[in-house]
């Protein structure tokens, strides 16, 4: 594969105004990884891959989560695409607590990160994980994700499709109840 060996570079998003964008210095020494939302490993051209290293595609993510469970989730979603042919993926952070941590007072640290997938003809569902080293995970329906985060990643799906909870694997300890499904 052409992308087995490649160099890349994290960079601030030049298309955003300076006072609205993260800078490289915000993350230095902050104790968090620059966690990709759209994964580098999904990309098929050098241009697309470079764009995933924009800080507009990053959130401050716990290093242990970013490098283990979240990386495994990304690999699993790629395997779905390889097996099933076509997967729509929406990934994002959520910030639902009254107090938020921030990097240098500029970049907010999300409480959770989530990823929703829709496979045409198969179904849809999502994962949500707490942004910490001993991350708590839950597999949930698109409807439940929307209720928790306020984001509807796939507005065109029927209510029935949105209510189904897929039997996805968890990539960390389950949240609260034993099943980790909602």
């Amino acid at each position, binding site marked *: 594969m052409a*992308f*087995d*060996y*490649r*160099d*890349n*570079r*994290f*960079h601030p998003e030049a298309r955003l105004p300076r006072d609205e964008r993260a800078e*490289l210095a915000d*993350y*230095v*020494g*902050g*104790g*968090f*990884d*620059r966690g990709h939302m759209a994964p*580098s490993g999904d990309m098929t051209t050098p241009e697309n891959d470079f764009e995933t*290293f924009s800080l507009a595609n990053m959130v*401050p993510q716990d*290093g242990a989560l*970013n*490098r*283990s469970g979240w*990386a495994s989730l990304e690999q699993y979603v790629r395997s779905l695409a390889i097996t099933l042919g076509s997967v729509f993926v929406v990934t994002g952070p959520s*910030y*639902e*607590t*009254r*107090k*938020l*941590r*921030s*990097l*240098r*007072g500029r970049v*907010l*640290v999300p409480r959770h990160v989530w990823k929703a997938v829709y496979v045409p003809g198969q179904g849809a569902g999502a994962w949500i994980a707490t942004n910490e080293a001993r991350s708590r995970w839950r597999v949930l329906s698109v409807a439940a994700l929307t209720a928790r985060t306020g984001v509807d990643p796939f507005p065109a799906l029927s209510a029935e499709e949105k209510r189904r909870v897929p039997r996805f694997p968890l990539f960390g300890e389950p949240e609260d109840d034993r099943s980790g499904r909602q």
Partner: protein
Amino acid sequence: MIEPFADDETAMTIASMSVENGKTAVVLSGNLTISRDREGLEAARRLKEFADALLAALQTEALPDRIERNGGDPRTIDNPFA
């Protein structure tokens, strides 16, 4: 290939493993299968090349016993939407 410890922004991939550069630490993550074939040889060669560069960089300077990596706890602010 990235130059170890030169900056806080370069990154690279060695097959399925990712490497992020930093002035205080280089982080390798993921896992790497070295198969007993030409692909495995290429991966092993890239890995050795990078490990050699790490050693060369670390051996040229007087090192502290342990470097301070984090600049302290992140600031806490009120969530304007909660």
